[in-house]
């Protein structure tokens, strides 16, 4: 299960690095207080759960083929998150740092491109919007 409605236990993900792994690259996607110039108060994440799980599984399978020495873990929150909350955590460990960085970057890029998860941003004025990354500046 890659999706969770509870806070992500990042320390537990880190602890899974293997004794042969010398490099651990991680990415945390954090709810930030602005988007496209508008202030953000909180974000509600919605997922097509079973498909999102299957897509993440496929992404991880692809990473394992491309970087066989890397071990990659993913957790993604769903539900309502506040500023500073971790929405997604990637932990990529490998014997050497080049693979760890490459696998981590590819993981977050592909997750953002293809995993059916959406987010509705709530603004301080009470309005809200579904975020459309294809419409504006690059997402964080």
């Amino acid at each position, binding site marked *: 299960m890659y999706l969770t409605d509870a806070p992500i236990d990042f320390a537990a993900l880190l602890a899974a690095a293997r004794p042969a792994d010398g490099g651990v690259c991680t990415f945390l996607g954090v709810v930030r207080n602005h988007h496209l110039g508008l202030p953000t108060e909180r974000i509600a994440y919605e997922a097509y759960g079973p498909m999102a799980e299957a897509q993440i599984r496929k992404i991880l399978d692809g990473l394992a083929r491309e970087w066989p020495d890397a071990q990659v873990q993913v957790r993604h929150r769903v539900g309502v998150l506040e500023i500073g909350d971790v929405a997604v955590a990637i932990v990529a460990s490998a014997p050497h740092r080049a693979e760890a960085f490459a696998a981590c970057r590819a993981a977050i890029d592909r997750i*953002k491109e293809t995993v059916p998860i959406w987010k509705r941003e709530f603004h301080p004025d009470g309005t809200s919007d579904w975020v459309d990354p294809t419409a504006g500046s690059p997402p964080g």
Partner: protein
Amino acid sequence: HPSPLTKARLPPMRIRLLYFATFKDVAGRDSEERQVAGGAKVSDLWRDLTREMPGLLKTGSMPPAAVNREYTGPETVLADGDEVAFLPPVAGG
């Protein structure tokens, strides 16, 4: 001689349609059971839906579609019992 098995001769099917994010807002529901013509493709379903709910078109052309939780193309022919979703631009992470 026997007539060819045409699209019109196929029995109608029932699919389960899911709505997410902005499409859920437009549809006012998150899922429905729906009857479609035998042999209907994903693109036929999208055409029918946008006639009923022009608000779906705000994302422009046909969005990515999933059948049974896998991405698929507009030419995919639907089957009875399929779980179908059109996906607004994803924004995970």
